[in-house]
C-alpha cells in the first residue's frame, strides 16, 4: 500500500516538453487512469514513475519520500508493457517467477507463489508452457501475474487492453479490477480510450500536450468538464455563448436558470453546455429553461435517435428516444434541464 505524489514533474526532449509541471496525488490502493490522445505525455509520466526515464525537473514521491534518485530495480514500481510481454526464451513459470528470482527467493517458496499467482489470473498449471503457445489474452494475464507476484508498491500498466479483441478486453478489465481490489495495489494505467478509463478507474487524469487538464472521478468528466477541450474529448460539443449573473445565464435565446452552487465559473462571459443525453427534446409546454432550435439531421441508432440541432448558430448533438420523429428543417422547442446545465470558461 503506497501513495504516489507527482510534484511539478517535467520532462523535456530536446525542445519538446513532453510532460509539463504535472502535479498529481494518487492515494494508496487507488486505481488511476492516465487518459489522453497519443503523444500527450501519459506513457512518459509512467516511465518517470518507474525510473526508466529521469525527469528534467520535479519530484516523484512514494509514501511521501522522494524516489527520483532510486534506480528502477529498487523502486518496486512494476510496469507491464503493451507488447513484447513475456520473456520468449523461458517458460511461463519462469516468467512469473522472474522477479522472485531477482530477489533470490528460495525455490520452494517461489514455486508456491508462482502457482498461486497463476491461479489468481485463471491460468492454473500453465507453468511449463512457453510464451508462444499462449494466446494474446493469456500472455497478458501471465504478464500481470509476473508483475503482481513481487507484491509491487505500485503497478503500472501501459495500454493493458489495447491489443485484445472486444470480448477479451471485457474479461481482462474485470480481472484487473478484481485483482486490484483484492490485493489493494496502487495502480496506474495508461489508455487513450475514454470508455476504458471511465469503467475501470477510481480517478482519471486527463492530459493534453503534456499538461494535466483535469484530475477527477469519472462522473466529473461528463457532468463537470473543466474546459471545452475536455468536454469535446468526452464527446460533448454542445455549446452556447452567454453571460452569467448569479443563478442566471443570459443567452441569445433567452435567460436560463442554473444551479449556482454547482458551477465553478464566476459571473461574466461563459459557455453553456448540456450533454447530448441530458437535453430534453419533448418538454412540457409549461417547463422552464426552454429554447428554440431547428432540426438539421436525424439518424436512427437502434437504441436511440441521434438528432442534430441548430441552437443559435451552434450545432448541437442530442440523443432522443428511439421513436423520436421530426422533419429536417422543423423548428423544435428543447429544454436544457437546470441541474444539467454546466458552465465552461470561454477559451
Amino acid at each position, binding site marked *: 500500500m503506497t501513495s504516489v505524489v507527482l510534484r511539478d514533474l517535467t520532462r523535456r526532449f530536446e525542445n519538446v516538453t513532453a510532460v509539463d509541471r504535472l502535479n498529481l496525488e494518487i492515494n494508496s490502493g487507488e486505481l488511476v487512469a492516465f487518459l489522453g490522445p497519443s503523444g500527450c505525455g501519459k506513457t512518459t509520466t509512467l516511465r518517470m514513475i518507474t525510473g526508466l526515464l529521469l525527469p528534467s525537473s520535479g519530484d516523484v514521491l512514494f509514501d511521501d519520500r522522494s524516489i527520483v534518485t532510486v534506480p528502477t530495480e529498487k523502486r518496486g514500481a512494476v510496469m507491464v508493457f503493451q507488447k513484447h510481454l513475456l520473456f520468449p526464451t523461458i517458460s511461463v513459470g519462469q516468467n512469473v517467477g522472474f522477479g522472485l528470482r531477482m530477489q533470490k527467493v528460495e525455490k520452494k517458496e517461489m514455486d508456491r507463489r508462482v502457482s498461486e499467482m497463476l491461479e489468481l489470473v485463471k491460468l492454473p498449471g500453465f507453468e511449463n508452457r512457453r510464451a508462444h503457445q499462449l494466446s494474446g489474452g493469456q500472455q497478458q494475464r501471465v504478464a500481470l501475474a509476473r508483475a503482481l507476484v513481487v507484491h509491487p508498491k505500485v503497478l*503500472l500498466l501501459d495500454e493493458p487492453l489495447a491489443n485484445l479483441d472486444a470480448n477479451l478486453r471485457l474479461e481482462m478489465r474485470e480481472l484487473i479490477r478484481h485483482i486490484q481490489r483484492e490485493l489493494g495495489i496502487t495502480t496506474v494505467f495508461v489508455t487513450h480510450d475514454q470508455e476504458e478509463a471511465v469503467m475501470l478507474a477510481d480517478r482519471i487524469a486527463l492530459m493534453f500536450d503534456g499538461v494535466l487538464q483535469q484530475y477527477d472521478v469519472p462522473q466529473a468528466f461528463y457532468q463537470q468538464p473543466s474546459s471545452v477541450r475536455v468536454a469535446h474529448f468526452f464527446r460533448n460539443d454542445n455549446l452556447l455563448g452567454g453571460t452569467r449573473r448569479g443563478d442566471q445565464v443570459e443567452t441569445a435565446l433567452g435567460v436560463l436558470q442554473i444551479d449556482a452552487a454547482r458551477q465553478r465559473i464566476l459571473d461574466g462571459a461563459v459557455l453553456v453546455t448540456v450533454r447530448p443525453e441530458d437535453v430534453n427534446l419533448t418538454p412540457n409546454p409549461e417547463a422552464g429553461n426552454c429554447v428554440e432550435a431547428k432540426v438539421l439531421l436525424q439518424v436512427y441508432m437502434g437504441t436511440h435517435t441521434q438528432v442534430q440541432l441548430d441552437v443559435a448558430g451552434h450545432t448541437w448533438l442530442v440523443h432522443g428516444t428511439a421513436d423520436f420523429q421530426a422533419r429536417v428543417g422543423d423548428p423544435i422547442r428543447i429544454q436544457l434541464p437546470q441541474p444539467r446545465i454546466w458552465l465552461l470558461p470561454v477559451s
Partner: protein
Amino acid sequence: MNKILRWLVLAIIVITALAPILPQFVWSFSHRWLFPSLLPSQWSTEPWEYVFTATSRVGEGFFNSLAIAVVVSLLSILVGLPASRALALHNFRGKSAIEWLLMVPIIVPGIVATMGIHQVFIRLGLTDTFIGVCLVHLIPCIPYMVLVMSSVFANYGTELEDTARTLGAGTFSVWRFVTLPGILPGLLVATMFTFLISWGQYITTVLIGGGTIITLPMVLFPFISGTNYPNAAAISLVFVAPAILVLIFTSRQLGRESSVMGGFGRL
C-alpha cells in the same frame, strides 16, 4: 503440386551449392584426369597424403586461419555489439554518417583500403604480425556484425529489458537473463559471418602479413596458379569445410530467426 515444387527448389539449391564442390572431390583423388574422359584415368590418394605432410604447410595455414578468424570474431563482437545496439536503439547526432561509414568497407575494394593501411601499419610496426592481420580483417568483418546485430537489437526492442528492470533486475541480470538469451541466435549467425569473412581473406593477409603469417588461402593459391589441380582440390576441400558446416548451422538458425537477415535490407 506444391510439394513437388518445394522439392524441386530444394534440389536446385543443393545442386548449385554442391555441384562446384563435386569435381574438386574427384580431383583430390585423381592422378591423371584428361579431357574428355568423364572420370580420372588414374586414381590416387597422394594429394590427401600431401595435405597432411608438414612441408605442405596446410596444417600451419589451417591453424593460423582458425586462430585469426576466432580472434577477429571475438573482436568484432567486442566492437560491433555496442555499436549495433547504439545504432538500433538510439538517435544521436551523426548517426546516419556512421551508418554510411560502416557500409564503406563493403563498397570500397579491400585492396585499395589495405594498401593505405599498409603504410600506416609499417609505421606502427603492425605489419608481419598476427595482431596486424587480425586488425585488417576487422575492416570487412565489422560491417556484417553491425548490420546483422543492429537488426536483431531493433527487432528485440527494449521493452523486455525495461520490464526486467522494473521487476528488480540490475544491469548485469538484465543482460544475463534478458538481453543475451534474446539476441543469442542472431549473435551466433553474425559471428559465423565474421568467422567466414576472415577465413576467406587473401589479399589483406598477404599485404599485411607479408608472408610471415601463412593462412590457408595463401597455401592454396600457388597450387591453383601452378595448375597442380589434385593438390589444389584437396586443400580447397579443407578450406571449404568450415563454410559448409556454417552454412548448415546458420540455415537452421535462419529458418527460426527471420529477423537475423533483416539488416541486409539496408545494403
